[in-house]
Every structure is written in C-alpha cells, then in structure tokens.
C-alpha cells in the first residue's frame, strides 16, 4: 500500500518537487483532519512516520536516493519541511496543539508590503463643499440648488445688476450662442455665481429662509495658478424678521471657527456687491502662521476668504414680485459667498487650481 502511495519521481526540477511535496502535504492534512481516537492517531503516526513502512521513510529511501546530486539539497529542504508539518499534525491530533517547530515551518515575511484593496478618493472639492455645507446644516441651513445655465434675469438683473451697470464688467460671462434676438432678461448664460438660487428659493417660499447653495459656476477668465473658468461656490442666505448685521458677523465667525479651528479670528471690511448692503469682505487670521505673518498671508497675518452683506432691499423687491412677504420694511436678511477652490487649496496645500479638473490619478491618490 505504501508503495502505491509514493510514486516514482522522474523529474527533479524545483517545480516538480514543489508539486510532489504539495500533494503529499495535502494528503497528510486530509488524513489528519478526520482522526478521532488514540488508535487512529497511532495509525496515522505509523502510516507517515513509521520507521520501516512510513511514507516519509519511503520518500527518503526512494526519492532521495534516486535524485541526482544537484537536486539532493532542494529535496532535503522540502523533506524536512514536510516532516515538520506531519509532526505538527500529529501533535495537534494528539491534543497537544502545533509545536513551535511546525509553526515555524509556516513562517512568512511580514515585512513585505500588504496587498491593498483599491479605495477611491472623494474629490477634494466635494469634500470641502460637504464640510462647508455640514457646518451650516448644523445652524439650520438646508441645501438649495439651481441650474448652471441661467437667464440674465436671475444671474444679474434680480441680483441688482441693472442692464448696462458697470458692476457687470467685474464678472466676465460665458454666454450661450444666438441670444442676441431675445429680450435681455431671457438671454441664457453660464451662471457666474450661485446667487440666482437665492432668488429662485425666495420665489418658491416665503420667509423664513435659511439655505446654503453649493454649486459649479463659470466665468470667462483666463486660466492661471489661482484662476479657472470653472470653479465652485458656496453661498448662503438667511432671511427672517430681525436678522441683523451682527447676526451675519456672528454666523460667519462661528462657521469659520467650525471650519478652520476655534483659534481662528475673523475681521470684516466694507466692500461692495450689488446684491448686498452693507457689504463686507471677511478675513480670517492666517491658519498657517496663526496671525504672526508668513508667506501664505503675504505677512499680513490675515487671509481674505469670503464676501457677504445684508440683503439689498432691491433684491427683496424682486422677490416680493412673487412672494409679497419679502417686504424689506418687515424682514431682513444676510447673504454670504465663498470660493470652494480657494478654501480647498488652503486646506490641502494645493498650489495650482487646474489640478482640481485634470483627473490626474497621482493628485487624486493623495486624498484617499
């Protein structure tokens, strides 16, 4: 019987040896798996390790002898490993658990790198947008969205950029072709800011309103390290009775601390936007140097981050055409807006805005 189970070996190449020993090991394991009772264990011992008729004895006497001299070493190594395995199996079957030697025979190189499963990375812009949105969600702001192709009315006119007003020059606009024959207010363009959603929301619902508007916007700007014709904004709008400028300050101060850490300070400067009055630019204390002054903040200790202001009564007047409750004598509100790319660049140390839109795996890999 033993003669049958150990075949003659004609091929002594390493791969043939691997195959032959693997098959022996498999059958040893299979035999050991079903053992129960001392007798069976003893029978297993005799079958594999018996001095005269044991299989390992056969291997040693037949394969080792037949092997050409150059294959003897390789065969010996495998033989010893198999022997350790069988001894281990026997110990296990006898209830002693595997011996150290048999476990050692299973040693692997733990310093080799692990096999990593693929893991996708959320885009840094999405991530930043979501962070900002969730900060405002905690303050009771719902998300508002609107179309990227807008009419002149929603993008400009109702935001208090009258036709022909110089303020329109500050936002170079990409327009849809063949609009010249349409009335100005109906002409289609790529929205230059997410502000149209402010009006669309107010037209849909009476006050109070608290919305935060994330979205893609476009301008006809030449691309450079910090400018892109495509970028993202988050705007916010809060309208209710008795909303004040100090509420605007408090809200944004809170939001900046939530986004950049509680040590961050804010300061407000008068500014000009057609759709807010009073208008302000907001700076935060430099998150890189803590306000001491560094290259990132041009040694000022401050970084300009957003624009905001109290909603201009003219904007409410446009909203009141559809929702009369937007009476600037009775309600008030504030709006704010920020560039998402700029914040993402700061948060993640990105130096070229174009990297956000290139789909470069090397860039995106960093955000896993």
């Amino acid at each position, binding site marked *: 019987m033993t003669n049958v189970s150990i075949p003659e070996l004609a091929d002594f190449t390493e791969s043939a040896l691997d195959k032959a020993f693997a098959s022996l090991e498999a059958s040893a394991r299979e035999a050991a798996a079903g053992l129960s009772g001392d007798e069976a264990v003893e029978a297993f011992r005799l079958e594999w390790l018996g001095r005269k008729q044991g299989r390992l004895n056969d291997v040693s006497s037949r394969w080792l002898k037949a092997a050409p001299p150059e294959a003897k070493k390789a065969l010996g190594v495998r033989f010893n490993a198999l022997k350790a395995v069988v001894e281990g199996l026997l110990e296990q079957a006898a209830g002693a658990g595997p011996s150290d030697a048999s476990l050692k025979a299973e040693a692997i190189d733990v310093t*080799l*790198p*692990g*096999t*990593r499963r*693929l*893991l*996708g*990375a959320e*885009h840094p*812009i999405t991530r930043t947008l979501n962070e900002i949105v969730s900060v405002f969600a905690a*303050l*009771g702001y*719902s*998300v508002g*969205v609107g*179309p*990227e*192709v807008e009419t002149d009315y929603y993008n400009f006119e109702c935001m208090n950029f009258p036709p*022909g007003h*110089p303020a329109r020059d500050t936002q170079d606009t*990409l*327009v*849809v*072709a*063949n*609009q010249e024959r349409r009335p100005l207010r109906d002409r*289609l363009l*790529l929205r230059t800011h997410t502000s149209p959603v402010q009006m669309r929301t107010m037209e849909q619902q009476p006050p*109070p309103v608290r919305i935060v508007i994330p979205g*893609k916007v476009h301008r006809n700007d030449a691309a450079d390290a910090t400018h892109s014709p495509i970028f993202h904004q988050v705007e916010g709008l*809060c309208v209710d009775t*008795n*909303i*004040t*400028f*100090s*509420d605007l*300050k*408090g*809200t944004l*101060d*809170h939001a900046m601390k939530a986004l950049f850490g509680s040590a961050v300070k804010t300061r*407000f*400067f*008068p*500014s*000009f936007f057609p759709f807010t009055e*009073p*208008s302000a630019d907001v700076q935060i204390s430099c998150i890189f140097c803590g306000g001491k002054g560094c290259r990132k903040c041009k040694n000022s200790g401050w970084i300009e981050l957003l624009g905001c202001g*109290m909603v201009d*009564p003219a904007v409410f007047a446009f909203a009141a055409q559809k929702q009369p409750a937007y009476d*600037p004598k009775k309600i*008030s509100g504030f709006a704010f807006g920020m560039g998402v790319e700029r914040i993402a660049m700061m948060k993640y140390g990105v130096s070229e805005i174009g990297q956000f*839109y*290139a*789909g*470069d*795996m*090397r860039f995106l890999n960093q955000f896993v």
Partner: protein
Amino acid sequence: MNILTKWLRAYLPGLTVDDAQLAEDLTLRGIAVEGTYDLGSGKGYLYEMDITTNRVDAMNHYGVAREAATIYGLELKPLAFPLPEAKKAAQPFSVQIEAQDACGRFTARVLRGVTIGESRDWFAGAEIATYFALLDQKKISNAVDASNFAWLAMGQPTHTFDLDKIEGGIVVRRARKGEKLKTLDGIERTLDADDLVVADHKKALALAGVMGGWDTMITPETKNVLVEAAWFEPMAVRQTARRHGLHTDASHRFERGADFNAAPLASAIVSAILLANGGSIEGELVDVRVAALEERTALRKPISLKLSEVHRLLGTTIDAEGITAAAVENILRGLGCGMTSAASAAWDVTLPSWRLDIEREIDLIEEVARVYGYNRFANTLPAFAGGVRALPWEEKEAAIRSTMLAAGFHEAIASTFCSAADAARTSPQPGQVVPLGNPLSEEASVLRPSLVPGMLAMIAGNLNRDVSDVRLFELGTAFIGTTEKVEERPALALGAVGALPTASPLHASRQIDFYDAKGVVEQVLGRFEARGVYFDRFGADSGLTPEWLHPYRSARIVVDGGTVGWFGQLHPSEAAARKIKEPVVIGEIYLDRLYKQPLRKPVAREISRFQPVRRDFSLVLDESIGWEAVDRAMSELRIPELVDWRAREVFRDARQAKGEYALLLGATFQAADRTLREEELQSFHAQVVEAVAKVGARLRA
C-alpha cells in the same frame, strides 16, 4: 490708484496718527490701502489703493482726506483756488447743450496769453513738481499737468482746448453718423449717431467724457485756451467708450457718476495753475446746466432716516452704548450730508453731490456702519426653529458616490465644455447640443451633452503622463437642448484602464476589462430598487450603440424597461484618435432616469440552519448561447430550494468543438426547514439538466 500721505495731510492739518495707522483705519472703513511704501524722510508714504467701483468719489486725494476727516472727526481744509479778476469779454463764450439727456453741465473758461511750458511747484496747494515726482507721474506740459493735478486732487476730469482751433462756440451733441474725429491717441475714428461729442459750430472736437481730439490739443505754440469742466451722464459715456474700445480715467469716472457741482472748482484749479505761468481770464465762467439732470444729481430730494432702522438692520454693538443719534449725525455730516431733524431720532438727510451712490435709506445705514467700524459690532447668532430639508436626490447621489469609492474609483471633476466634434459623437440625443456664444476655445465651444468627452480627456491625460492605472468617475451635469432651451441632467461617468488590483509581490495583477466595469455598474444599480435590470448588446449596424463604444464589447443598461446608460470597451477608433493603446472601459449612466427608482432598503431574511449542498454542472454550449439563456432557464425552474446559481467558470480549450465553449455552472440547494435528502437532490439535478438542455446546453461528456 496711488495716494500720497504728504498730499493728504495738506488737507488735514489736525491729523495726528501716523501713516501706518491711517492706512489701517482707512482700510477697515472700506477705503482699502493695499500697499504702503515709505518714500523717505519728509516725503511720507505712498498708498496703493483698491477702492470699490461704487466709491469713485474717493479715488482722489481730497476724497480720501474726507474719509479720514470723518473717521477722526477732524476738520477738512476747503479747496480754495482764487482767480485773478477777469477781463471783460465782448460777449460770453457760446456754449450750447444740444444733448440734454446726456450732458448735465458744461462750464467753459477762456484764458488768453498763456505760456505753455514745464510744470513746477506753482504755489501753495499746487505742488505739481513735488507730488508728480513722488507719484512717478510724468510731467507733460503745464496745461496737461494742470488737468492731471485737478484729477488727482479732487477727481473731476477736465479738458483744455487750443481756443484758436475752435470755430464758433461749443455744442455738446450726438455725433452725425459717419462723422470723423482724430482722438488724442492719434486714431482717426468714424463716429456713430449714438456717440456723444463736444463739438464746435463746424466739427466734432472730442469724445465727450472719454478723450479729447487731436486737432484742438494744446501744443507748445498754444496762446489761448478754453478750459472745459463738465458733467456727462454715465450711460452716454459708457456707450461711447465701449463702442470705441476706450477706457480712460475720465470715462471711468463719468460712467460711475461724477460730482455735478465739481466743475467750477476743477475749472478754477486748472485755470489758476495755467495762469501761474502768465496770461489772463477773458469773461466770466460760462456755466450751462440742464435742470432735469441737476435735479437727479446735485439737487436730489432728501432721504428720511430713522435711528430705529439703523438698529433694526445693524444689530448689537460691542460697546454697550450702541449707535447713538449723535454718532449718526457726526458720521453723515462728516461725509457731506445735511441733517435736519424731522423728529427725535429721525432725520431728513440731504445728499452730497459727489455721492451719487447714495440714494436710499439703506445706503445711509451702510455709511453709518462703515464709518462706525464693522468690527465694533458684536457676533450674535439669530434664533432658529425649524428643520433642515434634504434635497430629494441627496441620499441617492451619496449612495452612488460611496459605491464608486468603495469600488476603488477616484472622484474627478471635468470641464463643463467640450468640442463640437466630441459633442456630436457623445450626445445621447443627436443634434441636441448647445453652443457657446463666446467660447474659451474651440475645444470648449459647446456645453457637454455627455460626461464621456471629459472622462476620455482625463484618461488620456493620465496615460500621457505615464500613469498607466486609471480608475475615475464623475458625478456631473450634462446639457441637452438648444440655444432656446437648455435641459440639465445629472449623470455618472466612469472610466478605467490598466491593472486591477494594484500588484503585490505575491499576487499577480490583471488588466481591467468589460466585466470589471459591469461589476461596478451592477453594484451601483444594486443600491436601487428595481423590478428588472438587464444588459443587452447591439451590433454595429443597429445604429443604437453609441459611437464611442466597441459595438461588440459594450452593453446597454436597462432598468425596469428603460435605458439608463451605456458602458463597455472604448471603440478602437476612438482610442486610436486619442493615441490610447490599452483597452479602456468607459460608461455613462443617466442619473435623471436612475433617480426615478427608490433606493433599495435592505431587508434581512432568516438564515437557514441546514447545510447547503453545492452541485456543479459542466456544460457545453454553442457560442451563440449566452449566459443569460442559462440564467433564465435556472430562474424559471422555480425550485424553492435552489438558493443560488452562478457561472463558476467559462473556458474554451482543445476539447471543445469549434464554435462551442464550456461552462461550469454552480448551483446551491438549501431548505429552510430540513436537511435535503439524496432523492431530492437527484431530482433537482435532473431538473437542472433538463432545463439547460432546453436552451441548448448539454452536460460535458
């Protein structure tokens, strides 16, 4: 615009703060000092200003000085340029305003016997040489410099004509269509009937409020000068300037609203400086005004302002005292407003002629907040009661994103635009592509009708940079429609090429293929509730498969009977056109359609305690018979104990006849309430063999 602190201080004798503090205080009040440069001992600082477009009145030294005076409550020195007595003129110089809608005021002063020469510090208050040197402003001649000085001092554009080149008097009128005018920049211009010009009785002399004319300019030979200081209507100037592609200091100011009352003073500044080098005035200042425009500007009606409105809109200050009535009065008076108290804590406010940006009560409230100081307001949070509403598709989008990320795809954002050619090849609706009127480039000339062009560009970009393993997805908007009406549709694009998974030293990697893409698509669809999902394929001649896909290695995705997308291997021609050699898998799902399905809600089933039994069937099939046929045959068996079946292996080897392949079908049987008996299993086995035989599969011998 640059400002000299030395010049500012000439108007603010009481100013005690240093130049650095002044810069900060101005900036915090919205008169932004962007840069400060120390000019050296005794020369003060140069401020580089960044003033918002609504504050043109502050884009000059006197305007900035006025702001400083208001901030610190200081006296602002009046601008005084006394002129010598005029000689009698035989008759006043003739000025007519024909374009009554576009020119509100025109002043003209005749100077005779002047000497054109180099500028110097003429007299106290007219230190042209000193200030221009510090500002790096080039000196040209005393006439041109005088205009520039008035401009820098108080922001009113003026113009000087060589009087001897003027025929008759001045007429401010619209140009005649085709009329010619050579402007100061040497360009011969053909005028339009909408252009506003300053003309004499024969010809156009200047583009009003924009640029003077060549033929009447001051030359070294000029002896007699006409000084113009006027007020032009913003839109008229804007249109003229735009039509001629000009943007000058003068047009900038007039477009944004100049000071209706500034003309006489500006004229006096220019005249006084010119006369400092000799000459005399002939006749009184000719001052023609259009009442309607004066009423809209300098004589605007007072605005009523209530302290309660100031408080209602501005809220809480850090200082407990808050904004008092006295503070409001001080701020607005300082800015040039007249305050008459109509009632307690309410005023009728008359507006300064130089602040055309102030028109409403809110504008006054803004001025109060600005000068009071934004940072002196407290940080308060408004009370809030109510909930946060989620967008209807927010959860669905998040489910798709998390599935794609878990599948190892990186999220990307591509351009909103693509070329017309790419759009034509990828639009799900032929011809429904929206071109831009002023595209950034030819490659970005239309709104993308599909996310595929952007995905392809990103894949090609990676391969060009020798990044060979790419897995990207984008959640974005596709645009379908016409230039009349544009429809925006959410879409998901996915694209991949290269090895999967990342190789390790012990495990081989393999090439990404169609089935990897299909697996991801299935996982995405698996997040949604659907009665039926299937994939089908159309040949090249069907015309149904999108052009960008390999016609025999791509599939349509059908959910509950409707097409929701396409995916597969990139068409070899498309790959070749982009010089891509490796097989790319790419797809697009129309999310507006997928979002019609609700998200799948997981439901737990009882897990059987009884042992499952697996049976494998080694089948041989004709190449024309796909898995779907076997799959359907299995599902139609309706054996409750058949809990799972799958294609375990597909292979083609020498043992098969040509045109056939082998399929290892694995089936698992399990009952919820018992251990399966051998007879049952034999029956199941027979039923399976019979069922698959009906679709043409036979057991392998």
